[in-house]
């Protein structure tokens, strides 16, 4: 299902704030290159977050700059070609925990406002 324009705008906005976190989380499973990360996020969210892969690269480079991921050219097992593989660093692991807890806090806060009855019940 192709996303509507409205949907894609929404998802972009959500992405802006959470892309870093999603990338870090994805890398928890092991090293991956840009294409894999993009595909993985897209697949896991049932195409809701169907992004142009392009927007990943500035984010990846930002994470690398901050030392949360490291990058290395490695040969892919199935393609026999080199790809740039990103790997979560120890610092990145900690950052992921921080972002995750912040995200949870915010979700809870939003939920309390949006569905107060559920909270009471």
């Amino acid at each position, binding site marked *: 299902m192709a996303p509507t324009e409205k949907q894609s705008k929404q998802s972009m906005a959500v992405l802006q704030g959470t892309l870093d976190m999603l990338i870090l989380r994805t890398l928890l499973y092991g090293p991956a*290159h*840009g294409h894999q990360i993009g595909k993985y996020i897209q697949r896991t969210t049932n195409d809701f977050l169907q992004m*142009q*892969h*392009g927007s990943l*690269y*500035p984010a990846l*480079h930002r994470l690398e*700059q901050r030392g949360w991921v490291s990058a290395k050219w490695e040969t892919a097992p199935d393609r026999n070609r080199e790809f740039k593989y990103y790997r979560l660093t120890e610092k990145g692991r900690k950052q992921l925990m921080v972002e995750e807890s912040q995200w949870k806090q915010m979700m809870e806060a939003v939920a309390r406002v949006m569905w107060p009855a559920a909270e009471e019940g």
Partner: protein
Amino acid sequence: MRWWQIRGRDADLERELRADLELEEEEQRERGLPSEESRYAARRALGNTVLIKEQTHEVWGWAPLERLWQDLRYALRQLRRSPGFASVCLITLALGIGANTAMFSVVQGVILAPLPFPEANRLMFLWEKRPSVPQLDVSYPNFEDWEKSTRSFDSMSALAFHNFDLTAPGRAEHLMGIRASYGFLRTLGVQPAAGRDFAASEDQANAAPVVLISDRLWRERFASDPRLVGRSVDLDGKSFTVIGVLPPEFHFLADADVITPLRPNLPLILTDRSVEALAVLARLKLGVTKDQAEAEVNTIQQELDRQYPDANRSIAVTATSLLQEILGDVRGTIVLLFGAVGLVLLIACANLANLLLARSTARAREFGVRAALGASRGRMVRQLLTESVVLSVAGGALGVLLAGFGLHALLAVLPHSLPRTGNIGLHIPVLLFTGGASIAVGILFGLAPALRCASTDVQGALQSASRGTTTGRHRLLGRLVVVQFALTLVLMTGAGLLLRSVRNLWHVNPGFNMRHVISFRVGLSPSFTNTPDRTRTAYQQLLARIREVPGVEAADLTNIVLLSGGDNGGPFWIGTRQPATLQEAPHALYFWTGPDYPKTMGLPLLQGRFFTPGDRIGTDKVVVIDSVLANRFFPNQNPVGQTLTVAHWGAARIVGVVGHVHNWGLDDPGTYLPQQIYIPAYQLPDSMVTDFFRTLTVIVRSALPPGELMPAIRNVVFTSGPDQPVYEVKTIDEVVSESMATRNIAILLLGVFAGLALLLSSVGIYGVVSYSVMRRTQEIGIRMALGADRSRVFRMIVGQGIGMAGAGLGFGVLAAIALVRLLPSFSHLLYGVGQIDPLTLFCVSVGLLLVAVAACLLPASRAMRTDPMWALRTE
């Protein structure tokens, strides 16, 4: 990341994107898409790679600098590609910025550069003033009382300027000097380079004479003799011990070579509260303002007025800063000219904006493509501004070169009377100013075209590349021409008004004959002037010998060379009964002179007689008055034979009336000391003779040029005594030119600026009209196809130019009228023309209109020759 890693990083990113793109493509193919389509699909999936790269660069943190570098390279490439456009811009900018740089270096050197004294902003002069006279010298007793009682100042010192004749050791030389009370150097904050300052005990009436000399004198006259301090020199026939040498950078008002203590050398004025003869220099205490200090001294002076009502009545005190005193009127003129040259730069900016706007039409397609490819508006504006700033900075660099030449020429014509010209040069602050101004100018003239260009409608631009949206652009072009013409009219009106003033001034009758008069001074040998009688005889003999020189028609002495700023006024009254106070008595300008004065100066004798050789010391005192005094004090009666008393000299019989002369410049408004009294120099009392005769000037009437006459006169002077310097040789014509120097330099520069403005705005209107003819080829073709004849087309184009110019002239006239009123520094340069001068405004307007028409002729005739068929087909 460091900036030098960016290149490597960039290659890495490129490789990464390519790898992922290929992978995506493979996957699409594996899904069964044909290879061509899979490539497109992969690209769509990845997105705009240029944008990705830019955003990633942003992450690396060097993006702004990278963009700047990219813009710079792009701008240079653009300029290289259109050398004609670039050179027109560069020449315009070089002229505009060059003129501004040269003018700013004058502003910087003369007005802004600090004076060579520590914390010079705390230095000021104190003056007396009366309700009728805004600024007067100070009497010594008043100064002493101020010095004793004030608390606003660290120190103060009373000064009298005096020119000394240095006669030994070596040849005779005439030197400018200052007699200063104790504390002069301390007030300025200057230490002698060698020796010491004089002590308080040396500024006492009977102290041994001591002197401080300038570095120049020490080097040139005494060959930098390190043992000079302690030796003696002869000044005005008296032996002085040199106690110190001033530092080389010491320059104070008139460049003094000699400084002596005041009290031992001017004993006559120390006790007389009514002799106002001193300038008072003072250094403010830290934290005290000029106004506070002025108020304090005024309170003290009010008390002195009460204590000494005879000499002091309604005297107030006014303070002027040292810089203000040094600059005088010059400051206003310089600021005015700097404003004028700024207008020239604005006109140049309008031209450049015109050029860029016209060019932006040609580049509409380029920017349409860029916008379509995803360039943001801000990004395009930034790039266009980079282009215009690159232009203006390059123009500024050329301008500095031009300013170097211009300044050289300017310094050659600047009057000697202009203070601090030695400071003028292309120094660091000037270059900083030029750099800043260049960048500002680039943004100023680039902004409108850049905004317009960047907001081009993408579709329209791509569809009809050469059309674009021209109407709005066109209106802006027209407005720029209007502004140019308004500014040009303002500058030309200014130049015109000054020109008329100077013309009026040259036609002023100053009351005497300015042609063929030479003035010079002689330092008579001290051996001839050691008694009053010998002094009188020596000067009489000197004049007798000068009169015998071939070519000399007449010669005499005077204390005031007319029009040179000489001031020697004082109170007088009719009859012998002294008024209650001297301040209340009328004041007149005193001329101390001899029998041949009217013949030498061409002064008309209206009634009675002038002096004769018989009017000398011991005979009855006589005076001659001018027509103004005669009309004011002896209306309807004959003044000849009446008695008039000159304060400090005595009662005298009026023996004649002469015409009134202009002393305070050709533009003398006759408000300050309008009455004039002539007193025989040889009737001066013994006590004053030696000092006074030394200050007199010889005037000679001769048709010979000074170059031919003066050697013979020098010869005559030297044969009577080899230690007698002849100096300050000037013709009255030169004196008059000097008195007009500020005006002349203003008119010269304003004329040059107005000329530049005229040139630039005629180029501007030519460009805009040509451009519009080019744009309207099709329209003109249609008009002609529909039956408009050629003359009609011609009129239409010329009419468009006249419309723009006319609007500009309308605004310009209003602006010129307002500015002349608002700028006293300009209106005080005017003479004999009203602030609103219809003749000047009319001539300038008509002239500018003619220029506008002339500039439109070429494009209009081009339009007239348009072939309708060709015009319609080419579209």
